Structure formats: C-alpha cells, structure tokens
C-alpha cells in the first residue's frame, strides 16, 4: 500500500508538471499544444547531451533544458502561433499548427539525436528500504522532490508575482486585462515560454530515471491531455490534481492489475470516458464555452 502511494506521488509530480505547462498555454491562448510531448522529449535530449555526453553536472543539463525550451517556446509563439491566431478565424488552425510543430520537432530530434533510446548515468546511487514497505531508489526520491519544488515555485510565481498576476488576468478576461495595460503579445509569449520550459524541465528530470527516446513525444502529449481533462482545462489546480490522479491510477494499475495483463491504460481510458460523460468540464473546470 505505502509502496503504491509512494510510486503514485513520484509519478504524479512529474505528470502534474507536464500538465501545468499544457494548461498554462491553453488558458492564455486557447491553444492546445499538441507538440508538448515533443518539447518534453527535446528537454530530455538536451540534459542527456550536457550531462551524459559532455560530462557536465546534472544541474547544468537541467538548466540547459529549461532555457532551450523556453527559447523554443518563445519562438514558436512569436513566429508561428501569433500570426496564425491574428489571421485565422477558426480555432482549428492553431490545432493544425500545433500538430505540424509536433511532427517538425520529431524530425529535428531524429536528425539531431537519432532514434535510439538514450540513458544517463545515475545521479545518486542507493535505494531507500523502509522495512520493505517502501522500496525506492534515492534518485527517484530526489527527482520527485525536485518536481514538487518546481510545482510549488510555479504556483507561488503565478499567485504572487506581477507577471503571474498579469497572466492570470489575461486568461480570465482578455479585454479587461488589455484595458489595464497588459500587452497581450508580450504575455502570451512569456506564458508559452514558461509552459514549454516546464515540459523541458520534466524531460530533463525524467531522463535520469526512464531515459529518453524519440517515440515518447506523442504518448506524453496524450497523457498530458488526459490529465488536463481530468482536472479541467485551463485551471492550474486542475492540472495538478489531474497529474496526481493519473500518477496514482497508473501506480495502482501497475501493481493491482498487472496480473491480468497489460490493461492499466485500458482501464484508465474507460474510466476517463465514463467520468467525462458525467462531468465534461473536469473536476475543477469551468464548463466549456
């Protein structure tokens, strides 16, 4: 039991961080970023390159992932989403654009890093064994704790900084925010950069545990959408709750359901479909439209 909860918390923290980035971008720009998973993978490869290939400290790799993805996010917003949103009359255009960016990033990653699974040396060795009730390697504990620290920092930033307040205002009422002097272009770019940066950070964190490969992008995006749907789109608390719920479900599923075969995600999808038919706006969400 304790083991399931510990695994769920560890997974949930990573997932919540991924979902936070996705939901921030959605809340600010009404864009579903299909390329979120690819941004996560790119973050993994950057840390791999800095830490495993160049032999620099892990922290340097993690910072490089964050900065790289923030820059990628800012560029993608400024030169791709902004002009499309300005000209397009239909919301589907941004979805197509996001899907296009996903394929593009896949191709870039394939060219730059190849198709092989890559791992990095362990950041710390040893395993915590609490009376055989919880057995967890120290590196997982550290990565889980780092993820939770990043989540906490992000929430505090959104809640108490002037920039965070402006982004919340923009998400809640675009026109009113503009009339208070919030520059929509500038804060959309900051928000997109932040969201992409969070994806990059998770990539850098998780490469130390699971490694990274090209194929992880798509499934990660799908998981991120699921979390956001569980919690409610565009709501920060929803993304966090959704992340931890999915992490917990996966942890329970892998322990309890594995004896019946690889059906964890089958059960999760069915549960999600039933849940959404009763509560389409998610747990914390406001109804669509």
């Amino acid at each position: 039991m304790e083991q399931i909860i510990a695994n769920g918390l560890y997974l949930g923290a990573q997932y919540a961080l991924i979902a936070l980035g996705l939901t921030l971008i959605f809340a600010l720009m009404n864009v579903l970023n299909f390329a979120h998973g690819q941004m996560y993978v790119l973050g993994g490869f950057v840390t791999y390159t800095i830490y495993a290939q160049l032999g620099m400290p892990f922290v340097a790799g993690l910072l490089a992932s964050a900065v790289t993805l923030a820059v990628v996010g800012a560029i993608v917003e400024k030169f791709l989403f902004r002009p499309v949103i300005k000209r397009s009359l239909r919301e589907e255009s941004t979805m197509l654009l996001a899907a296009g960016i996903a394929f593009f990033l896949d191709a870039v990653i394939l060219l730059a890093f190849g198709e092989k699974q890559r791992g990095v040396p362990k950041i710390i060795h040893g395993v915590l064994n609490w009376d055989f009730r919880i057995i967890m390697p120290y590196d997982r504990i550290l990565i889980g704790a780092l993820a939770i620290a990043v989540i906490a920092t992000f929430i505090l930033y959104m809640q108490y900084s002037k920039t965070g307040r402006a982004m919340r205002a923009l998400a809640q009422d675009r026109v009113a925010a503009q009339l208070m002097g919030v520059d929509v272009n500038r804060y959309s770019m900051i928000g997109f950069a932040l969201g992409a940066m969070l994806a990059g950070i998770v990539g850098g964190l998780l490469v130390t545990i699971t490694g990274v490969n090209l194929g992880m992008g798509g499934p990660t995006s799908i998981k991120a959408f699921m979390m956001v749907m569980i919690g409610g789109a565009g709501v920060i608390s929803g993304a966090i709750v959704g992340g931890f719920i999915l992490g917990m479900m996966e942890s329970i599923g892998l322990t309890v359901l594995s004896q019946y075969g690889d059906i964890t995600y089958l059960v999760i999808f069915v549960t999600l479909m039933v849940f959404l038919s009763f509560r389409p706006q998610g747990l914390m969400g406001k109804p669509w439209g």
Partner: protein
Amino acid sequence: MEPLLHLDKVELYYDHVYALKGVSIDLNEGETVALIGANGAGKSSILRAITGLNPIHRGEVHFQGSRLDGTRASDIVKLGIVMVPEGRRVFPYMSVRDNLLMGAFTRDDKAAIKQSLDGVLHRFPRLKERYSQTAGTLSGGEQQMLVIGRALMAKPKLLLLDEPSLGIAPKLVQDIARSILAINRDEKVSVLLVEQNSRMALSISHRAYALATGNVVVAGQSKDLLKDERIKAAYLGGEI
C-alpha cells in the same frame, strides 16, 4: 483652452456596418461628459475608438494635444486613459485585492500604489469587507464598484465608463452615480460616461451628446438637455 480629448469626424465600422459616421466630440479637463442614446447608437463604439480596442477608419482622436488613434489598447493606460468596460468584467477567479492590484499594473511606485489602494477602499468600504473574496462571487453592484475602483488604481486623468448602471439594483445605481460625481469632483478625474439611463447620466454630467445611428444629434449643457423637449421625448420618456 485646448480640450483634453478631441474626436474629429471619427468613422468606425464593424464588418462594413457603420457604427460611427463622422462623430466629433470634445471633453475639457475636469468635465464629466455624458453620451446618451439608444442601443446601437454608437455610444460604446466611441469608447472603443478612443481606447484602440477597435481601429478607426477615418478621422482623428487627440488626447492632451497629441494624436491618440493608432495607439494599442494596452498602451492607452500609460497615457492616463482608463476604460471600465460594459458588463463589469471583473477577473472572476481573482480576489478583490488582486483585481485592484491589476488596476495598478502599469505603475511601479509601491508606496503610491498603496496610497491609491487605501483611497479606493475608503471610497468603497464594501470592497474592504470583501477584500480577500473571489471577485466572481460579488453582487452586481459590488462588482461595479470593484471595476471602478480597479480603474482608479491606474490613476487616470480620463475615466471612460461604459454603462455603469446596466443590470444594477436601482438603489445601487444612486450609489454609483454619487461615486462618479465624487471621483470627478474630489480627484479631478475627467469622466466620459456612456449611459442608457439618460436621466441619471444628465443629472451627474456637465455636458452631454445625444447620439442616434452613429451621429451626434443633440449636444449641450446637461441641465438644459434635461428640459429639452426633443430629449425628453426621445430619451427620458418612460424612465422614472
């Protein structure tokens, strides 16, 4: 003396439907000017033309002697023009406090912001009682006080009010009218007031323009317009 705000033959249309057909209005420093008229007469379009929410197609807008049209909506605030949009539009999931602080978004001097905050809470004691509450849970009248307070946090020279009495309980309409009077008098803020409640608008303004289908049809001193037969027939008829 040069007017604070001057609109010169402004034309504006949405998808080829004319909203303003060459409107010229002036507002002098310290004045409260009302724009009255029926729905669709173009009152709100004038405010949207001033703030840059909608680009104008012909004509010019001047503020303090410089050209205003073409300036982005988010840059207008720094010049001292703040608009309170129709329908209140608080930030619904933010606290009253954060809503008010958003009003001071373009300001940096913490001490001065604190002073403005105290001033607003003094003017609207209800907001003080609701200080940590989420804005979406306030009543309509309280939300109207909040958006006016939020606008004052920007320290405006010119306050643009779009239908502040719309959907508010009659008792509170009087409170809001009194606040607008006091803001104009005590804080030397010039006010451009768009209202369907013409009697209220004329009773708290110095001058007024009556609009119909995108044109100014009558202009004059508010106290004269209150007695004007044309205005009475067209705008004051059924109202109490």
